[in-house]
């Protein structure tokens, strides 16, 4: 297995584009190494992107933040300003695995590993995050909800990698949150994950919202109908019931050892309510 550690994105993209066999990006390695060691994949080339400066930085941009795709969850948590602006995203990234995993795992890897149950993805989608993709043909920006197509299948073409995520500026009176259901207290894969980002006006009415669900379909979902249930409402019981119903209807989950279809559908509605209320509480305080 060949190991390369390029120092620019262009070099990394060229290595990946030019690989004759299977090639994989190595960021935190918390999924890649497990897959290699269990013989799920046998890449001929591993491209370590941790020496690429721009992928390891968090920089302020247009009032928001550009987060390098190889910044770890632990680093996100320690950033002095990020958690205050986007607590849902930072908390979601820090629910992945354990302290040890968070010390290495990255949001770029969490997304590109292609699991519909990835924890940071619904929070990024709800935030309206844009993924900046770099490849042999240059760079392009894609909404995070358009990156994953199906389990282990991304919309990236050969040689393309995610360089960074742009979290937009926080509008006044808005807040985000992420909740997930897992059977244990820690260290588990989401049975349902829900990210909500919303804005309230002065009278407490919701003027904007984004609702995303993870682990209930073949990819994380941006649920427009769930957002519409909230927009124009004061998050009263009727609106929350409509939200839960829209969340349930959007699910197309599988039965597996972690949860049945019916259970996931029910929990999606429950979590949508709870997450929306936390986001609203944060919006009121912001």
């Amino acid at each position, binding site marked *: 297995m060949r190991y390369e550690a390029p120092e620019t994105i262009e070099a990394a993209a060229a290595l990946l584009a030019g690989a004759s066999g299977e090639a994989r990006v190595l960021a935190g390695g*918390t999924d890649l*190494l497990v897959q290699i060691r269990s013989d799920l994949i046998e890449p001929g080339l591993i491209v370590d992107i941790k020496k690429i400066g721009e992928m390891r930085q968090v920089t302020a941009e247009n009032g928001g933040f550009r987060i390098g795709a190889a910044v770890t969850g632990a680093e996100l948590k320690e950033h002095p300003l990020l958690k205050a602006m986007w607590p849902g995203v930072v908390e979601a990234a820090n629910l992945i695995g*354990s*302290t*040890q995993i968070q010390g*290495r795992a990255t949001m770029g890897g969490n997304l590109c590993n292609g699991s519909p149950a990835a924890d940071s993805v619904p929070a990024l989608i709800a935030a309206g995050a844009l993924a900046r993709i770099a490849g042999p043909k240059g760079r392009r920006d894609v909404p995070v909800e358009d990156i994953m197509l199906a389990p282990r299948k991304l919309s990236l073409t050969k040689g393309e990698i995610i360089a960074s995520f742009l979290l937009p500026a926080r509008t006044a009176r808005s807040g985000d949150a992420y909740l997930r259901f897992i059977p244990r207290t*820690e260290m588990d894969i989401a049975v349902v994950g829900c990210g909500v980002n919303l804005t309230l006006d002065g009278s407490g009415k919701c003027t904007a919202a984004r609702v995303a669900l993870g682990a209930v379909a073949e990819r994380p979902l941006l649920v427009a109908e769930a957002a519409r249930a909230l927009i124009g409402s004061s998050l009263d019981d009727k609106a929350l019931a409509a939200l839960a119903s829209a969340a349930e209807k959007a699910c197309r989950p599988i039965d597996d050892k972690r949860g049945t279809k019916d259970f996931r559908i029910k929990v999606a509605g429950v979590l949508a309510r709870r997450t929306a209320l936390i986001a609203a509480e944060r919006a009121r305080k912001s």
Partner: protein
Amino acid sequence: MAKHHVTAQVNGDSVEYLCETEDTLLDVLRDTLGLTGTKEGCGSGDCGACSVTLDGRLVCSCLVLGVEAGGKAIETIEGMAKHGPGGEALHPLQRKFLEHAALQCGVCTPGVLVAARSLLEKNPSPTETEVRYWLAGNLCRCTGYDKIIRAVMDAAAEMRVSG
């Protein structure tokens, strides 16, 4: 493919080693460097028995490649006790683990100690809940965790006083 030639620091000492791409830092520590204090419990980043710190960051060494450790400072359980002209002095965490009987078979213990030390470096006054969540990635089949948590809380209290 030729092996990677890596130089790094382990517990303050300069080391160099050769490794294949697929060799993990855990493999290197145990099999190449002879530092068998760090244990393999699962090999998949779930149990935490292989915990070390990498440039001050708590990680599972089974999920780090040996080649990724180049130029980095690694701290393992072997570096926890102080070795000085007067002899060996156990870290307060190590002493408290003995006092509280916070280990039985001891296989999880190196990982728990490394993880706990990392916590107290970041947060000298953790609540019990914070300790439990921080150590969630360190599994123990023997003790039921209670004595581990008491030992960590007690060591933290002592370290806050002694500085």
